[in-house]
């Protein structure tokens, strides 16, 4: 279902063609990074730390070097140390430990050998002497003075006074507005709570993989799975100390990323092993390595206090957020602060966030990073306000809903946003208007995510037969090629399947930032449209030459040139390309831009659950999500993003968590024990696409990739409360935890 607000009707945009890359993917021909085989190729294997925190005293590779098939071995000593202020320094230290290992799974050495087995055996024969150090795993404990320190050079930034001692707290972020004391004093009702979540993995089905082939000319070619091959190039160059011109990165198909493939783990190691062995080197992670050594999203402890008037206006908010970023600091607490009360107009607030390092894998982005945990806290408490004031939870949200011109908590004024429309869409949905089945609980929640613009490039070439090739630098992680083709079809007026959308490598297309922040269809789509509009100008000029008339007398519409005086028969695009050789040569256009004006995304969701009172198992009985897409270019893949985000959120809310033992060893590094949702866990996920077009995009696109994962955490918690009377403030809502809450009568009445 789509609810559209005043957008033009289009011929191609908004239709649902079969995606261009689909056929290869259903017949098993699509080439992912692990599928590439090159002549003489070696296999790389990484030796990883068995300790959560230890000093590397010595590494002896002599036995491994003597083993059959071994062609190269590298350790931290083979890589330079970037200056302390280099933004890529922590990445390089994560890819290969130097003097210390900072988490179980931290890379210590890598081997290239003729077979996978030989590489693994040799890696295991490397003798590493460790001096085990005390470790810290818990966010709150890591923040305490005297906690084991991961880094001697982290001094908390953002404090009122300059700290004199190093700490595990990398920074403090603060947002304030109004008078919070006055706000709470004027509140008729105050609710508060502490909310806890664990690290969660993105769980893409394809493990990280790459092949690197370094030649004697000092150049290398990398085939890899990533969300952004230009960043693979720059990060690989940074770690190796190379000029980027020596590195060509060819994007393979990517088997899921969700943020987790916005940074690198393998490529510089493969390049270095290839340089040393003179052979191509393939590196493919095992699932165990993916869990232990690639980035989960942070665990968190978040305390929120909200004050509201008796009629339901939220007038005061206090939030304290701590995010664990793993072994190196990130930006997670800051993002959480920016999101924590974003769906509400609150006059008075103080929000402070702390970025905390612990001895766990370095965190990476995961779909609307940091927003879901923050929403879990706020939207659970908003539900409590609604319940205590006996106000419908959607009506309460509508009462506090920001709209264009209101000031967002993190500073800027909101542009045109569709939160109100999403709330109304859920309120008016058949799901929300129907009563939950007897015994079922219902929860609603809302969520916010920024979306971003960044740099994109596109080249559009018209072929002699009137078809077009659209080359962009955005890896297609969920159907974006089809979206690019649809926008190009709309512009050029030719069939969407007369357009071949291609993801180009770092040497055939202009610089393009990572596919992240729901930006590909927004920003790269903008570049495609700009290039197509350039081409339309060229086509008018060619038609003018063919007609020997002034270009001003030529109009372009619906895929053809028409003469304003009506003196010539219209020329279709193919008529003009067929004559291109005689009218000035091939037609092509390139656009490169920094996309401004990304449209903020909101989603509102409602879920019905049943809770087995004997086992504590929560079953999702019905789920409906409404999301503002701006404009849905290809509605199938918009729905797919919405449904995928919701189900990842359901997994986060109900099942998923990193479990570490007391020594910091991950106990569930596989899909059997780290249980992501399976088909039999779920109902259909009903979607309502709301279209409040983004005025800053030629087709009104906002970007749809991320916000869907934000509301499920509080929506499920609110539904479980409705079903059981228990407010559970720690995730996941796994059977033991829910059962314990039921047994202990943790029905605090909210």
């Amino acid at each position, binding site marked *: 279902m789509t609810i559209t607000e005043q957008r033009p009707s289009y011929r191609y945009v908004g239709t649902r063609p079969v995606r261009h890359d689909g056929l290869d993917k259903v017949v*098993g021909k699509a080439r992912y990074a692990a599928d590439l085989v090159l002549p003489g190729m070696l296999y790389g294997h990484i030796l990883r730390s068995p300790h959560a925190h230890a000093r590397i005293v010595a590494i002896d590779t002599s036995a491994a070097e003597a083993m059959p098939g071994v062609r190269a071995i590298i350790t931290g000593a083979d890589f330079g140390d970037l200056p302390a202020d280099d933004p890529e320094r922590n990445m390089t230290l994560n890819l290969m430990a130097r003097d210390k290992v900072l988490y179980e799974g931290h890379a210590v050495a890598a081997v290239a050998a003729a077979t996978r*087995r030989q590489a693994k055996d040799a890696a295991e024969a490397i003798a590493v002497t460790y001096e085990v150090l005390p470790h810290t795993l818990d966010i709150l404990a890591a923040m305490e003075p005297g906690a084991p320190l991961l880094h001697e050079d982290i001094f908390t930034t953002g404090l009122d006074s300059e700290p004199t001692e190093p700490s595990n707290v990398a920074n403090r972020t603060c947002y304030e507005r109004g008078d919070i004391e006055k706000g709470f004093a004027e509140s008729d009702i105050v609710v508060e709570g502490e909310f806890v979540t664990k690290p969660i993995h993105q769980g*893409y*089905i394809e493990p990280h993989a790459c092949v690197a082939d370094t030649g004697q000319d000092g150049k290398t070619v990398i085939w890899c799975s990533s969300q952004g091959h230009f960043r693979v190039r720059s990060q690989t160059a940074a770690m190796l100390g190379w000029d980027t011109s020596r590195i060509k990165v060819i994007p393979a198909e990517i088997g899921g990323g969700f943020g987790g493939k916005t940074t690198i783990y393998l490529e510089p190691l493969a390049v270095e092993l290839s340089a040393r062995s003179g052979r191509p080197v393939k590196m493919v992670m095992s699932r165990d390595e993916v869990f232990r050594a690639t980035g989960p999203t942070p665990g968190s402890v978040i305390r929120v206090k909200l004050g509201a008037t008796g009629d339901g206006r939220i007038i005061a908010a206090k939030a304290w957020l701590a995010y664990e970023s793993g072994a190196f600091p990130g930006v997670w607490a800051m993002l959480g602060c920016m999101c924590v009360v974003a769906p509400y107009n609150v006059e008075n607030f103080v929000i402070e966030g702390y970025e905390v390092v612990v001895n766990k894998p370095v965190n990476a982005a995961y779909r609307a990073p940091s927003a879901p945990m923050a929403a879990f806290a706020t939207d659970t408490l908003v539900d409590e306000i609604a319940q205590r004031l006996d106000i419908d939870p959607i009506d309460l949200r509508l009462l506090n809903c920001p709209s264009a011109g209101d000031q967002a908590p993190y500073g800027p004024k909101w542009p045109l946003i569709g939160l109100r429309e999403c709330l109304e869409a859920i309120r008016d949905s058949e799901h929300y208007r129907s009563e939950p089945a007897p015994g079922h609980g219902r929860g609603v929640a809302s969520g916010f995510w920024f979306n971003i613009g960044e740099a994109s490039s596109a080249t559009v070439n018209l072929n002699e037969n009137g078809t077009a090739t659209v080359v962009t630098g955005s890896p297609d992680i969920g159907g974006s090629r089809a979206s690019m083709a649809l926008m190009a079809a709309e512009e050029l007026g030719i069939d969407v399947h007369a357009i071949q959308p291609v993801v180009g490598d770092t040497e055939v297309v202009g610089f393009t930032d990572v596919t992240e922040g729901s930006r590909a269809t927004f920003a790269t789509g903008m570049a495609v449209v700009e290039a197509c509009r350039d081409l339309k100008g060229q086509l008018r000029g060619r038609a003018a030459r063919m007609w020997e008339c002034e270009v001003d007398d030529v109009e372009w519409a619906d895929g053809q040139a028409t003469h304003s005086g009506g003196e010539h028969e219209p020329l279709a695009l193919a008529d003009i390309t067929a004559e291109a050789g005689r009218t000035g040569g091939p037609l092509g256009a390139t656009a490169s831009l920094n996309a401004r004006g990304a449209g903020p995304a909101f989603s509102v969701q409602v879920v019905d659950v049943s809770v087995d009172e004997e086992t504590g198992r929560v079953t999702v009985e019905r789920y409906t999500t409404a999301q503002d897409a701006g404009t849905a270019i290809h509605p199938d893949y918009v*729905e797919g993003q919405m449904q995928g985000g919701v189900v990842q959120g359901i997994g986060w809310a109900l099942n998923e968590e990193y479990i570490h033992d007391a020594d910091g060893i991950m106990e569930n590094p596989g899909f059997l024990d780290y249980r992501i949702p399976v088909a039999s866990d779920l109902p259909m996920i009903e979607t309502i696409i709301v279209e409040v077009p983004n005025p800053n995009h030629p087709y009104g696109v906002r970007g749809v990739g991320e916000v869907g994962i934000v509301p499920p955490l509080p929506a499920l918690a609110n539904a479980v409360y409705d079903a059981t009377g228990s407010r559970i403030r720690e995730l996941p809502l796994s059977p033991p935890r829910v059962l314990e809450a039921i047994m202990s009568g943790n029905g605090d009445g909210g």
Partner: protein
Amino acid sequence: MSRTHVSCNINGDDVEFLCDAGESLLDALRDEVRLMGAKEGCGTGDCGACSIILDGRLQCSCLVFAPEADGATIVTVEGIADGDHLHPLQECFLEGAALQCGVCTPGFLVAAKALLDRNPDPTETEVRYALAGNLCRCTGYDKIIRSVLVAADRMKEEVAG
């Protein structure tokens, strides 16, 4: 260490390959036979991306030793279509947008084919349980389940028609 000689039929072709005794059938399919359709998502039988039909039974090829395939008949995703004529499941996956990144798709298609081969008229619940051994992180399964149900209807019509 000498390698083991295996003869089997894969997607209608008689195939011979050499493998190590401890090698998985998944690795043999990919490294020795160079059929790259089956994917390794976990190597422990938890994700189903490497699903094949081995002598009529749905299997995770990562859990089968390659030498066990001697004399076997194997269907992989590459063998589902009839030449250029796609299997209804493949058509419906394309039309129903049942894939995003596509890395789990080969396994889902093989598992869904195994289901429809033995139960041509499954309920939604039966499809959900039959595919519960295949993980997809992109789609939330909705469009996959719908596409399998549509394919089942289409195949029934073809039989009836």
